[in-house]
């Protein structure tokens, strides 16, 4: 039993890290908005999905214009990435302006329903457009980096089996790390970052310190959504096929990751995302082996949420969160 688990471990780690990186970057979007507005932007999973479609559409357009063959693969990748980020970033600002800002003073529940409405709206708009353009809303895009690398983990320790890494897995990991470090520097080292943290701490006082609160909130939505959209492109490249409903489950898991790491805490979201990705992959590979086949890979989602429940019972503020004392 142990030898079977160890044998697949290198491959599980590779797959788990790639999945975790996707969760982590999407989780940042949830956590940033919560940190500032104290409300869960449930449309964020759909923004991720829209990004996946925008990137795929960009690549398909390039191909039909005959430009894809002419440019190097990395340029096309970067172009799709940037287009998707810009589009979803602007989409994020638009959603905030239309659906959330008018409701900022209303009870939290109202904005929550507004967010759920937006997510249905995005699903159906994307579904409609994809169906119209391709005849099927499940779209298979162009995979740019398709080659495989073999990691000879067995030469490290003979118990391990060899793992296969797609070139794209490395791109996903690298892009996620760059995005996360960039964001961390932005929030902690720049003037805008200071403004953001100030608004998160106390919106009214921040506005007294001549911070334009509306601008900061719009910026937060731009960055959070752009990160989500960019990750969508990475996801589409990694798994090849996308549909308008990928955002829901993935958004749920990313939200779980954000809560696990302590909602409102950006580093916590990154850590939570990676953790959830690894747990999910470990569970889906090994549950069947551990339970002698009575629980299979289909129970992997239960594992992530089970861990969330355990963490919430014993450390309700999340792994990295600070307990907030509420004044009565």
């Amino acid at each position, binding site marked *: 039993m142990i030898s079977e688990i160890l044998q697949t471990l290198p491959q599980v780690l590779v797959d788990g890290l790639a999945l975790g990186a996707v969760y982590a970057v999407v989780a940042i979007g949830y956590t940033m908005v919560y940190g500032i507005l104290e409300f869960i932007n449930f449309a964020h999973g759909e923004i991720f999905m829209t990004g996946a479609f925008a990137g795929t559409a960009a690549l398909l357009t390039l191909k039909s214009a005959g430009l894809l063959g002419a440019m190097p693969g990395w340029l096309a990748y970067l172009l799709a990435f940037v287009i998707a980020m810009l589009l979803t970033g602007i989409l994020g600002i638009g959603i905030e302006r239309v659906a959330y800002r008018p409701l900022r003073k209303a009870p939290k529940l109202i904005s929550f329903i507004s967010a759920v409405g937006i997510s249905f709206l995005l699903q159906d708009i994307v579904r409609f457009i994809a169906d119209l353009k391709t005849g099927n809303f499940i779209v298979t895009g162009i995979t740019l980096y398709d080659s495989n690398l073999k990691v000879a983990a067995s030469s490290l320790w003979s118990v391990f089996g060899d793992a296969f890494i797609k070139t794209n897995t490395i791109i996903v990991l690298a892009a996620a790390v760059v995005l996360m470090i960039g964001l961390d520097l932005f929030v902690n080292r720049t003037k805008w970052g200071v403004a953001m943290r100030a608004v998160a701490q106390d919106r009214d006082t921040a506005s007294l310190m001549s911070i334009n609160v509306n601008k900061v909130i719009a910026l937060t939505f731009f960055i959070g959504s752009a990160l989500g959209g960019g990750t969508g492109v990475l996801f589409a490249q990694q*798994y090849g096929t996308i549909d308008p409903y990928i955002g829901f489950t993935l958004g749920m898991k990313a939200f779980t990751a954000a809560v696990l790491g302590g909602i409102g805490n950006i580093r916590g979201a990154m850590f939570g995302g990676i953790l959830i990705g690894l747990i999910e992959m470990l569970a889906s590979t090994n549950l069947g082996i551990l339970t002698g086949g009575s629980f299979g890979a289909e129970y992997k989602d239960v594992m992530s949420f089970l861990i969330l429940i355990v963490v919430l019972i014993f450390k309700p503020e999340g792994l990295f969160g600070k307990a907030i004392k509420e004044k009565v």
Partner: protein
Amino acid sequence: MKKWKKGLGAVMVTVLGASLLAGCGSSGKNSSAASGSEGAGGDLTVIKIASQSPLSGSSSAYGESIKLGGQMALEERKDEFKKLGFDLQFVPYDDQGDSKKGVANAELIGADKSVMAVLGHFNSGVSIPSSVVYEKYSIPMVSPGSTATDLTDRKLKSVNRVVARDDFQGPAGAEYAVKTVGAKNIFIIQDQTAYGKGIADSFQNAAKELGANIVGYEGITVGEKDFSGVLNQVLSKKPDFIYFGVLYNEGGLIVKQAREKGIDVPIMGGDGIDSSGMVDVAGDKLTNVAYSSVATDIIKSNKEWADKYHQKFGKNPENYAVYSYDAMNVILNALTKAIDANGGKVPAREKVRDAIRTTTDYQGIATKVSFDDKGDNKYAKVFIYKYDGPQYPGSMISEVEPK
């Protein structure tokens, strides 16, 4: 936290209220639509044949071809019915491959008194719950694609199908896997739907009987994109054959991701991966993948018919189109028989239902049709194909006759 809980309650109440209202609204509309259509026939009496298939969603490629195949058969015989004094109409419904939608449509169809029969469904998981509604209204259904055993094993009077059952498709696949390929250790993956689990289980039983060893049996969830977890298990069990009961979206991704992980063993599936969608999803990773299908390769076996279809609709038929065509003809033959028996007037639905069940030795384009007492077609064959590169359809390897 407390505020949240209250909030959730409020959401639930709102949703419940809204759905209640919606329910009332649509049922009101039904009855008015049904009464309206009865008077609208003019001098010809309107007879409608409905079709139910997934026109959107993950199996829309099949659903579309089922609709078009039925439409083609019906339009060819419109004049024949005009002479009998009937205006034959085709009403396609989209069941979205979703049982809730299928049942809702079935209720609509049942309420429309001029609908005499239903062509469909494709997905077994939709056929089974919807057939209960058809039974209630005595509307006969003929499915050109549902293969789950439960569909006909409940012995409903109104349920028929022209294709083979899963418990024939599974064993035919097992025979190919064990006898032709020589598989000893088989890993099974299924998608936890009535179709996927049904076909995987019947394969498993047959393969065990033939002496193969089942090293793993895992479930996946429809709609997932990352199958690394299950495939890592395959890596650790080192099977020499993989069998999966899935549809092409998941199937294509599993094949692609398996090949990317260096899993090169032969893979086999049921008719759910018999679609050009497999090629779109898996691309050039689609090698050494066999599938059993209840459908013949119509473009090769009857070029003339395929050309006619192409001319009419501007695309090549998926294989189910021709079964749908045959099923529609079975329906229409029974309908004319029932009309004759009723002295040229509109027959009762029960009469059409019984006339369909007594169909014997009808020679269709794709298959010969005779229904047994459960509504299964005695002549339904299973075909084994293989993809060896990104090309649909795969090349046919063998035909398996019913025992």
